[in-house]
C-alpha cells in the first residue's frame, strides 16, 4: 500500500486530482482511496488531501499519518506548511517549483527522501492560461508512481470527470498539461 498526501490551497483542484488518481487506479482493477480533509476553509487556505493505493483491499479509514509520497501543488506552501510531517527518510517528495531537486534540498535542508520537481505553474500558465496546477501535478505523480497506474487511464478519467463541464479546448489543454508534466518531471 502506498500512502500519498497532497498539499495545496483551496481552489487549486488538489481534491479533484486526488479523486482522479483514485478513480484511475480503481479503473485498472486495483484498490484506492481518496479522502479530502474537509474543514470550513475557503479558497486560498492551505488544505490537505490523501490517497491510498494498493493491490489489495484497503480497510483503513483514518488520516494518512506517514505518507510515502508528498505532493506539493503550490510552491508557496513550502514555507507555509510542515510538508515533511510524518515522512521518513524513504519518502518521496513531488514538488511544483522552477528549481531543481538539488536546489530544493539545499534551500529547505532536506535530508534523505527522494525529491522530484516539475514547473507545474509554468506548464499550467502555458497550456491552461491559468494557474491550475492540479492536473500537471497529477501527471508528475503518475510518472513517480512508476507504472502503478497507466497515464492513459488517467487521461480517460480526466475526460470523464471534466468532459461535461468544460469546453473541448480546456479539456485538451488539461490533457496536454498532464502529459507535459509527466515528461518534464525530474528526479535527483
Amino acid at each position, binding site marked *: 500500500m502506498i500512502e500519498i498526501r497532497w498539499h495545496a490551497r483551496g481552489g487549486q483542484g488538489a481534491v479533484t486530482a486526488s*479523486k482522479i488518481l*483514485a*478513480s484511475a*487506479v*480503481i*479503473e485498472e*482493477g486495483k*484498490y*484506492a*482511496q*481518496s*479522502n*479530502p480533509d*474537509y474543514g*470550513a476553509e475557503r479558497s486560498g487556505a492551505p488544505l490537505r488531501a490523501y490517497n491510498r493505493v494498493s493491490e489489495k*483491499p*484497503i*480497510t*483503513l*479509514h*483514518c*488520516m494518512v*499519518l506517514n505518507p510515502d509520497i508528498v505532493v506539493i501543488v503550490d510552491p508557496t506552501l513550502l514555507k507555509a506548511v510542515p510538508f515533511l510531517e510524518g515522512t521518513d527518510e524513504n519518502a518521496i517528495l513531488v514538488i511544483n517549483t522552477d528549481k531543481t531537486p538539488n536546489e530544493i534540498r539545499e534551500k529547505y535542508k532536506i535530508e534523505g527522501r527522494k525529491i522530484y520537481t516539475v514547473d507545474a505553474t509554468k506548464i499550467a500558465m502555458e497550456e491552461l492560461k491559468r494557474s491550475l496546477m492540479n492536473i500537471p501535478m497529477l501527471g508528475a505523480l503518475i510518472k513517480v508512481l512508476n507504472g502503478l497506474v497507466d497515464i492513459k487511464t488517467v487521461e480517460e478519467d480526466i475526460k470523464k470527470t471534466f468532459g461535461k463541464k468544460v469546453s473541448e479546448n480546456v479539456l485538451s489543454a488539461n490533457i496536454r498539461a498532464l502529459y507535459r508534466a509527466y515528461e518534464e518531471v525530474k528526479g535527483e
Partner: protein
Amino acid sequence: MRPELIKEVTYVPYSGNMAAAEAMRQINPDVVAAYPITPQTELMQCFADFVANGLVDSEYIPVESEHSAMSACVGAAAAGSRAMTATAGPGLAYMWEVLGIASGMRLPIVMTVVNRALSAPINIHGDQSDMMGARDQGWIMLFSENAEEQYDNLIQVIRIAEDERTRLPVMIGMDGFVISHAIERVRLLPDKAVEEFVGELKPMYSLLDVDNPVAHGAVAMTDSYMEFKRQQREAMMNAYKVIREVGKAFEEAFGKKYEHIEAYKTEDADYILVVTGSAAGTAKYVVDKLREEKGIKVGIIKIRTFRPFPYYDVMDAIEASNCKAIGILDRAETFGGASGPLFEEVATAQHLRRKYYPMTGFIYGLGGRDTNVHHIEEAIDKVMKLAAGEEVPLVNYLNLKE
C-alpha cells in the same frame, strides 16, 4: 421508461454518498423527500441529478426542512408508495418526532443517515451521536463500514422494511466524510438484478385506496396504546430473522455475505474489540498488524445491526473465542451513563447469557476526531492490561488532548 445504465457487475470509484445515491437510483423509489445537510448534501444532489435526467421515475420533493422530509415520507408511505430519504446529524435530530411516528404507523421508509456530530459546538464531521440519540425510536438500524456496504445495505433493507413480518422503517448509518466523501472502490450490481432483488412493494392499508378508506395515525387512548407498542416490539424481533434471511438471499444472489455482526479473527482471539462503522475497518488493519508483528491475538466484532441488537450473535462470537477481556469502541457519548451506548448493549448481552468478561469502554472519533492505527493499538493495549488484572477505567478516551 428510465434507461438501464448498469448491465453487469461493475467496479467504480465512488464516494459513500454516490454509492448511496446509485442504490437509490436502482431501487427507483416512488417518492424521495429530502433536505440537504452536510455531509449528506452530495447524496441528495446526485439523486436530484438522476431526477433531472430522467434516470428515475421517482417523485422528488425538495422539502423545506428535515421535519417535513420525514413527514412527507410518512404521507407517501401511508399512501402505499415506496418512500426514501437521507439526512445527517442535526437533520436527524430535527426529524426526531416524526421518526417515532413513522415506526409507530409501521411505515417501511428507508433512510441513509450520514453520521454527523450534534451541536453544540456546531461540527459538521462524523460521529454517531445522531443515530445513537434516535436508537429507541423504533427504527431498524444498521451501520455500514464503507461505501460498498452502504450500497449493499440499502438494497437489502428495502426487503427488510417491507416484509410483512416487520413493516418497520430502516435507517442505515455511514460515517460522515470518512465514508460519505472518500472515494473508494465500490462494486455495483446490474440495474435489473437490483430491481429483481428489491421486488415490488405490497401496499398495506393504502391511503389512496378510496374504495376502502382507512384512518392512519388515530388517537390510541390508555386502552389500546400499549398494545400497539407491544406489536412494535414483536416486529423488531421479527426483523432479527428477516435481516438474516435477506442477508442470505443477498449472498445467494450476489456472492457477498451479510450477517448481523462480522466476527473478524475472533475464533482464536484472546482480546476482542467491539466496534461499528468505518473504524471497524481501521481496527481490522490493526488486528492483522498486531498478529503479524507481535503475535497478539486480537479479534474484532463489527456490529452491523444495531436495532434489533444482536445480543446472541455477539455472545456466540465471544464465547467461541479465548476472550479474556473486551474493549467497546463508542463513537457517541452517553453523558451520565457508564460508557457509550454500544458498551451498554454488550453489557446487556453478557447478562443475557450470565457470562461475564472484563470490559472497558473507549470513546473515540467525536466530531470527526481522527482515530488511527495508533489509537486502536492504544485501546488494545488497555484491554490487554485489563485481561492481566490491572486496573483500567470504565471509560477511556482515544486521541483526546488531556
